[in-house]
């Protein structure tokens, strides 16, 4: 598996992803799965600013990500895939893909959500989506940075 981290994080590309995870994993590319950003060159420039020039950034819609996941998994470089919401990763969980683990890295407060961890707020429906993902054989844990201990799904849903 060359995608070393499948992450749900509503800040998308930011310091924890690029530096916190990217450095220890020696990631050479980041795939940002987001329908809005993938349709906006201006937004893409904004996210690219936070990434070193030697790290490639791929912007993909949810549909494109589902279509190209096999290609990215065959890439010999180490990659990180980030989605801002659970649905963006849930569509990638079918088939024979290599997504065996999902990292919940940051879902922050919004109306309808309640605090589960300092950096994870979920509605009941979102918690159910994560449990459904786990029921498909995907290991779901919460962990904002690599030096923190991963929190099992059952402890925050």
């Amino acid at each position: 598996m060359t995608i070393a981290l499948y992450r749900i994080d509503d800040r998308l590309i930011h310091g924890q992803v690029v530096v916190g995870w990217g450095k220890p994993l020696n990631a050479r590319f980041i795939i940002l799965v987001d329908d809005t950003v993938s349709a906006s060159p201006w937004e893409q420039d904004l996210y690219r600013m936070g990434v070193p020039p030697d790290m490639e950034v791929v912007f993909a819609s949810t549909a494109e990500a589902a279509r190209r996941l096999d290609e990215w998994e065959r890439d010999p470089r180490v990659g990180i895939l980030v989605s801002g919401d659970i649905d963006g990763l849930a569509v990638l969980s079918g088939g024979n893909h290599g997504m065996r683990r999902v990292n919940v890295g940051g879902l922050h407060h919004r109306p309808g959500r309640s605090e589960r961890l300092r950096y994870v707020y979920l509605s009941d429906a979102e918690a159910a989506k994560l449990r459904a993902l786990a029921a498909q054989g995907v290991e779901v844990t919460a962990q904002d940075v690599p030096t923190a201990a991963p929190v099992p799904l059952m402890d925050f849903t």
Partner: protein
Amino acid sequence: MSEPLRGVIVSHAALAQALLAAVAAITGVKDAFVPVSNDGCDTGALTERLTQAIDGRPAVLFVDLPGGSCLTSSVRLARGRIDLAVVTGVNLAMLLDFVFHRELAPADAARRAAEAGGRAIRTPAA
């Protein structure tokens, strides 16, 4: 005379608050900056904090890193507006320069603050 520019320091964790305290300790000026932390914020919540900090006034946003959530929210807010400007890589030297040039237009104050901040980065012989 028009109201002086507002400075908004946008950072991870408590860096913004600490920089504000350092500026006050050096200059005695306590009302030039408003600190904003991205702690616990998604993009929408951070934008809301920034909007409250700016409070409808002309301002320069001093962001800690040239990428990430602090930057993206700041640039989105400043896009297409002449009353807001953004500087990245905030340091104490640029904030001290800004304190005494708040009569400038936001873009001009941001430019000279960035130059002052850059000049402060050196590797002196020890």
